[in-house]
């Protein structure tokens, strides 16, 4: 998949994205993160019902050459985890913003969204790298 950063997403400096839909959001890792990792071999999802805190690590994504921490862009309660990743973790590489989604949460503090980066700011961050 070619490098891309969808306009309608919000971004976290640790290379995670959030798709906000009202008081719920879906999280994942960006193209940059999956590219750095290489082919993903394992994703151990957190449990449904557990609480995430903004800026804290909530899971790990493992590739052949690295294990990467996944940071929560926003705080909330996990409603759903992407079970399809157990059989097909490489979805995170092939479709990081679609089939490669990680968790869906109910936001506990929607105002946190304001602190996240928009696509321009995130691209700037990558440039300054």
């Amino acid at each position, binding site marked *: 998949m070619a490098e891309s950063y969808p306009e309608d997403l919000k971004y976290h400096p640790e290379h995670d994205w959030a798709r906000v839909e009202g008081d719920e959001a879906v999280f994942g890792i960006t193209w940059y993160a999956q590219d750095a990792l290489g*082919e993903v071999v*394992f994703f151990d999802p957190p449990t449904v019902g557990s609480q995430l805190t903004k800026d804290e690590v909530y899971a790990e994504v493992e590739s052949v050459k690295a294990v990467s921490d996944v940071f929560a862009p926003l705080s909330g309660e996990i409603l759903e985890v992407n079970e399809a990743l157990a059989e097909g973790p490489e979805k995170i590489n092939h479709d990081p913003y679609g089939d490669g989604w990680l968790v869906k949460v109910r936001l506990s503090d929607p105002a946190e969204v304001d602190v996240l980066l928009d696509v321009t700011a995130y691209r700037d961050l990558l440039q300054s790298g």
Partner: protein
Amino acid sequence: MSHDPRRDEDTVTIYERSRAGRRAFTAPELDVPDVAVEEILPAAAIRRRPPQLPEVSEPEIVRHFTTLSSKNFHLDEGFYPLGSCTMKHNPKLHERLAALPGHARLHPLQDPEHAQGALELMWRLEGALGEIAGLPQVSLQPSAGSHGELAGLLLTRAYHQDRGETRTKVLTPDTAHGTNPATVTMAGYEVVKVGTSPDGEVDLDDLRDKATEDVACLMLTNPNTLGLFDTNIAEIAEIVHGVGATLYYDGANLNAVMGIARPGDMGFDIVHFNLHKTFTQPHGGGGPGAGPIAVSERIEPFLPTPQVVRHGGDNGSEPRFSLDHDRPRSIGKLRGFQGNFGVFVRSYAYICSLGGDGLREASEVAVLNANYLKARLAEQGVAEYLPVAFDRTCMHEFVLSGRGARDKLGVKTLDLAKRLLDHGVHPPTVYFPLLVEEALMIEPTETETKERLDHFANAVRAILEEAAEDPEIARGAPYTTPVRRLDEAGAAKRPVVRQGMGENPGSPERAKNRPAGAAGAI
């Protein structure tokens, strides 16, 4: 397909060679009264089904493992410039000495009175290592370098505790070998990274910032993993000691400085040696090794138990050696018995063979060889693709960056490494240290001839020239090895870590029809 029928045949495991009824072992005859197993052991303890070990005859065992051995590249056949590993020649004398029954057949709990040769060898090895390190008190117990590192931090912890202090952090440079931070966590400390300055040395300002009284230790190697001698080491020691912390020396790079400079003189409190690097213990495909430590007087009381002690020996009397288990402030035991004695035999033989002069010469030539190879690889046609990471005299190893080859030729360091395999040499260490992009860490060691260094430099040049013409060749390499690039992602996604015994693994059909991703359950 390769048109080589042997190459196109899949490998077979020893379990797949097994056929019911074949055997290599015959038990000695029963010379005591026969009693049924059920009369001695309770039913609940008796195994229902024997372990599914193979049933094979001796010729098949020999042929199977000999065939496997032919698929290994090894040091006795070729150049192995793995940075940080010190792949120097393994002297053949050492195998003969290690196999002597007085060494190989000696039980670790033999009465010390009947193990005087072994204890004396250990004592003498300790003395030699202490002299090389410039720190007099030695323990041979740790089993490997990382075990020695753990010992060093446990000693540090005991030292601080003894002084009534609790410290929580350990500093490591960002160029540190992966074992260093892993060890820090196992020893119950928090890792704090210290930056590297543009000249490749420890960033003193960053160190001063981070060296607080909460720091227990700074772990360093000198020369560092960039192959550079840190010229500020005296000041580093002052900063670290100034806050009451210990200074730990990772001995991975000791091969650069034997007889030339001593870690103890540089200010280090604790040093570990890698006997499988600097002191020729054969790597054995991954192990065994040994990681003895040398420490300063103030750390000595905490050394592991037992310690080898020498009694008498003055005034012409025969010295006696014993094991001292009574060490009240010791951190205790790190492992069983006294350590990897078989490794001590080889290392001691090496030290005896070289002597003080020879050890110094080994380091001098190691540094000479590295600088020569670095100069050859700095020639036109190579340097623009593999620029050296730090343009200064290196010690026993140096680091190149493959970013030039990646950007200009489209071949990454990984591809260069794989193509080197086709040239009959082992590639250097790749992608370490993390500080350097597309890193290649090269350590030729002192036992290579100038011609072999030239051959390696020529091979690198040839690969780059080839890549300029057609980068696909390197990207698809290797071609001449027993297998080509392997699916490591698949191996991690669906790990198959043992032979499945579901069907009879000894059936010829099974060897052909193996499912690729069979789970390894019993």
